[in-house]
C-alpha cells in the first residue's frame, strides 16, 4: 500500500489541492481510506490529518470503514421512486443477502442509497464502484447479483448494464448543429477579443446554472481584476435532482463546451481551466480526457493555441458525492482539496476564486452557448427568447411522460407546450428547477420558462394524477437535510427540523398548530441560511403548502397538541430485541378519541 500511495502522491505532484483526486483513487483501490493512508498522505502532502479526515467525512463517496469490493449505490431521486426504486432495492438487498446501508459479511458487496445520479430519463439508476447503471429491473438485478457473487471484474460485465443514452428529443439553436472544432476560437480571435466579449454582451446570455447572472458582465469583471493569474472553471457538478442535460452535453458536445471555455480564457486572460465533473459522471471521464488530448494535438489547447500566442489548458477534477459543490464557492473549495463549504461573499469568485485568484465559474450550457455566440454573433442568440431571457434553454425532462429526455426551447415557451411535446397526460403538476425550484399545479400551465417567470437550471419533473404530492415533498426535504453542508445553524439544524416536522405531519402525528409551526420554520431556514441550499431547502414545502393547504391539514389529528417525541416509536428497538409485537408491547402516549 505504501508504494501505491506514494505513486499517487507523486503523480499528483504532492499537491494538497489534488486531495479529492488522490482519495478517489485510494477509495477505488481499497474501498475505504485506511488509517495508514491518512498518515502517509498527511506527511506527503504536508497537511494535517484532520484536513484529510474532514474531507473523507464530508463526501458521500469516501469512507473511513471498508465498503464492499463492489460498492453498489441506488439512486434515491423522486424519479427513481416513481419507476419503482423501493421494491427494486428491497429485491436487490434480498437477493444479495445484504442490508441497505451495510456491507455483506464476506466483504464482497455493500449496498446503499445515493442522491440523484442524473439518469432520471433512464432509471431506476445506480452506481457500481462509481460507474453508472441504468434502467435497472429485476432481470438486470439478477444478472448483477450473479456477476457479484462470481466476483467478475467490472470490465467483464455486459455493456448493456452501463449503457447511457442521450435521448435528445428536441433540438434548437444550440443542439441543432455541432460547431466544427476550432471554429468558435478562430472566429473569436479573428473578430478580436474585445469585440467577441461585446457580442456575448449583445447576446444577453445569462448563466445557465439557474441564478442567471449576465455572462459578459462576469467575464468583464474578471478581466478587469488586478491579479493577472486567473482561472476558468466549468461547473459540471450537475446535482439538482431531475437534471441531466450537462451529462448529454459533455457526452456529445464536449468539444464545443471546451471551446467556450477557451474563448472565455482568451477574453479574461486565463492560462488554466478546470472542468469540475460530478463523481456520478465517472463514466464520461476517460472520454473527456481523450477529447482534451485530441484538442492539444490539434493546437486548440496547450501553448501557442492556433499559433496566436494564446496559452491555455484544461484539467478535469472529479467530485465525490456532494450536492453543495454545485454552489460556485463550495466548488472552488472542493477544487482546492477541501470540504465543499460555501465561502462568505463578498469577495466573489471573480475577485477571489480558486487559490484566491480571479475566477470565472460558469455552467456547462453557458460555455456551450458562448461558443455558439462566438461563431454566429450576439444577434443570432438575442433574436430568440424573451426580452429578459435571451436564447434557448435546454431542459432535462423526466417523470410521468412518454418521452423523458433532452428538449431545447426558446425562453418564453409555456409549460403546456413542453408537456404536449414530451407526451404527458393527466398531469397533476410539474416540479420546475428541481427540488430547489417551484412546484406548479395544473392550473398554471400557461406560465413561461424564463428568468422573469419560471427560472430553471433545466430540471423539469412531471407528476401525473396518480402521484401523491407529499411523497415528493418528503423525498426532497430529506434530500436537503442529507446534503446540507452543516456550516450555518439555520440550514444544519433547520433542514433536519424540517424533515422531522414534515414526517410528523405525514405520518399522522401532527396536530393543530403543526402546519403553522412548519411554515414558520420554513421561513427561518429560507431567510437566514448562508447559501442557496438553505435558502431554497424549504421550497418543496412552501410551494406545495401554498397550492394544497388542505393536503397538509388533512393529515392532522383533531387534538390540540401532540408531542414531538413519539413514545411508541422509541420502543421499536426494544420490541425488536424482545421479539414482541403484541398489543401489550405498544404504548399510546395520549388517550384521544380521533372521531370526536
Amino acid at each position, binding site marked *: 500500500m505504501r508504494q501505491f500511495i506514494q505513486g499517487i502522491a507523486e503523480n499528483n505532484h504532492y499537491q494538497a489541492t489534488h486531495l479529492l483526486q488522490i482519495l478517489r483513487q485510494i477509495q477505488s483501490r481499497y474501498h475505504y481510506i485506511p488509517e495508514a493512508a491518512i498518515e502517509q498522505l498527511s506527511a506527503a502532502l504536508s497537511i494535517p490529518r484532520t484536513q484529510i479526515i*474532514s474531507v473523507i467525512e464530508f*463526501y458521500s463517496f469516501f469512507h473511513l470503514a471498508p465498503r464492499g469490493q463492489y460498492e453498489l449505490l441506488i439512486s434515491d431521486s423522486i424519479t427513481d421512486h416513481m419507476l419503482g426504486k423501493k421494491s427494486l432495492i428491497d429485491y436487490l438487498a434480498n437477493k444479495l443477502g445484504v442490508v441497505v446501508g451495510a456491507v455483506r459479511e464476506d466483504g464482497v458487496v455493500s449496498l446503499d442509497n445515493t442522491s440523484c445520479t442524473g439518469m432520471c430519463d433512464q432509471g431506476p439508476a445506480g452506481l457500481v464502484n462509481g460507474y453508472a447503471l441504468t434502467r435497472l429491473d429485476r432481470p438486470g438485478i439478477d444478472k448483477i447479483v450473479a456477476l457479484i457473487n462470481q466476483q467478475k471484474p467490472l470490465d467483464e460485465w455486459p455493456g448493456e448494464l452501463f449503457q447511457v443514452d442521450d435521448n435528445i428529443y428536441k433540438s434548437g439553436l444550440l443542439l441543432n448543429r455541432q460547431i466544427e472544432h476550432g471554429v468558435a476560437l478562430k472566429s473569436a480571435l479573428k473578430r478580436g477579443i474585445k469585440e467577441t466579449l461585446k457580442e456575448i454582451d449583445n447576446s444577453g446570455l445569462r448563466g445557465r446554472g439557474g441564478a442567471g447572472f449576465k455572462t459578459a458582465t462576469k467575464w468583464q469583471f474578471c478581466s478587469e481584476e488586478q491579479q493577472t493569474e486567473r482561472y476558468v472553471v466549468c461547473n459540471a457538478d450537475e446535482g439538482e435532482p431531475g437534471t441531466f442535460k450537462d451529462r448529454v452535453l459533455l457526452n456529445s458536445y464536449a468539444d464545443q463546451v471546451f471551446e467556450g471555455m477557451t474563448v472565455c480564457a482568451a477574453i479574461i486572460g486565463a492560462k488554466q481551466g478546470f472542468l469540475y465533473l460530478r463523481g456520478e459522471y465517472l463514466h464520461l471521464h476517460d472520454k473527456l480526457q481523450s477529447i482534451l488530448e485530441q484538442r492539444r494535438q490539434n493546437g486548440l489547447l496547450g501553448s501557442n493555441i492556433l499559433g496566436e500566442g494564446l496559452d491555455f489548458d484544461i484539467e478535469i477534477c472529479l467530485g465525490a458525492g456532494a450536492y453543495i459543490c454545485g454552489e460556485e464557492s463550495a466548488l472552488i473549495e472542493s477544487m482546492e482539496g477541501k470540504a465543499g463549504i460555501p465561502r462568505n461573499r*463578498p469577495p466573489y469568485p471573480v475577485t477571489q476564486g480558486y487559490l484566491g485568484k480571479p475566477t470565472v465559474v460558469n455552467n456547462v450550457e453557458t460555455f456551450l452557448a458562448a461558443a455558439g455566440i462566438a461563431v454566429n454573433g450576439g444577434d443570432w442568440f438575442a433574436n430568440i427568447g424573451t426580452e429578459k431571457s435571451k436564447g434557448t434553454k435546454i431542459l432535462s425532462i423526466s417523470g410521468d411522460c412518454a418521452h423523458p429526455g433532452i428538449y431545447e426551447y426558446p425562453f418564453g415557451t409555456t409549460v403546456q407546450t413542453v408537456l404536449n411535446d414530451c407526451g404527458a397526460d393527466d398531469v397533476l403538476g410539474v416540479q420546475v428547477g428541481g427540488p430547489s425550484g417551484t412546484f406548479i399545479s395544473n392550473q398554471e400551465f400557461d406560465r413561461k420558462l424564463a428568468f422573469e417567470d419560471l427560472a430553471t437550471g433545466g430540471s423539469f419533473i412531471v407528476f401525473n394524477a396518480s402521484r401523491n404530492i407529499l411523497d415528493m415533498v418528503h423525498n426532497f426535504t430529506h434530500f436537503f437535510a442529507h446534503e*446540507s453542508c*452543516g456550516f*450555518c445553524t439555520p440550514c*444544519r439544524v433547520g*433542514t433536519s427540523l424540517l424533515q422531522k416536522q414534515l414526517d410528523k405531519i405525514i405520518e399522522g402525528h401532527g396536530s393543530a398548530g403543526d402546519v403553522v409551526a412548519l411554515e414558520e*420554520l420554513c421561513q427561518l431556514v429560507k431567510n437566514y441560511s*448562508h447559501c442557496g441550499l438553505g435558502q431554497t431547502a424549504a421550497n418543496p414545502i412552501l410551494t406545495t403548502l401554498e397550492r394544497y393547504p388542505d393536503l397538509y391539514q388533512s393529515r392532522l389529528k383533531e387534538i390540540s397538541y401532540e408531542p414531538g417525541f413519539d413514545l411508541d416509536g422509541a420502543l421499536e428497538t426494544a420490541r425488536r430485541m424482545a421479539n414482541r409485537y403484541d398489543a401489550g408491547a405498544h404504548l399510546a402516549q395520549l388517550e384521544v378519541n380521533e372521531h370526536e
Partner: protein
Amino acid sequence: MSKTITIDGKTIPFEEGQTIMDAAMAAGVYIPHLCHQPEFTPHGSCKLCTVKVNGRNCSACTFPAADGQDVLNQAEELIEDRKKITQMLFVEGNHFCPSCEKTGNCQLQAVAYHLNMLDNHFPLFYPDRKVDASHAEVMIDHNRCIFCTLCVRASQQKDGKDVFAISGRGIHKHLIVNAQSGLLKDTDVDASDKACAVCPTGAILVKRTGYQVPIGERIYDHKQIDQVSLSTEHPKHGE
C-alpha cells in the same frame, strides 16, 4: 469627512476594511454573536449576528461596512428569529445548564438569556455524543459543541498548532482532534493554549478549574452579555 453607516437610525462611523460588526462594536452597539471573536478571522456560521443591510439579511461579522448602509439590528423580527436560531443550537446538542460547570460563564446560555429564550421551542435531537477526558489537563464534552470553530481558529492563528478541526457533513458535523487515536491526550494541546480558553460553551474545559468561581459570582450572573461583550471584546480596526 469620514464614512458612516446607520444602525437602527443611529449614525456610526467606520474605517475602510471594517465589517458591520467591527463598526458597531467600536460605537458601543451590541449585535448578538457566538462564532465571532474580534481577534480571529470572522467565520459567519452561527448566523446570530444577522442584520438587515438595506433590506437584505447579512452576517454582520463578515459583511463589509460601506458608506451609507442602512442597517437594522434591533428589529423585533430579527430578535425573534435570533432566539429561534439559539434554540436550534440548544436542541441539536445536549445542553443541561444546571449541571454544567460552565453555567454563568457560558456565552450560549448568556445569549439565550439576553434574547429572553424561555424554552427549547423545537424538539430535542438527543444526539449520542462522547466526552473525551483522556488528556490530563483538558477535556472535551462533545455534547456541548456548537461548531463555532473558535478553537480551530485559535489553535491555528494564535497557538501556531492544528489541534482541532470540524469534520462530517450537515447534522453529523463534529469536532475532531489531530491525533491518530482521535484522543486529545495524543495531540500537542496545552492547557495554556488560547484554543482551550475561547470555547463559548462548556465543550472545551481546562480540568480542575470548573468550580473555582462559585455559581452566583460568575460573569453573566450579574451582567448581560451585551455589556460584557462591549467592555471586553475589542473590534478590529480597518486596514
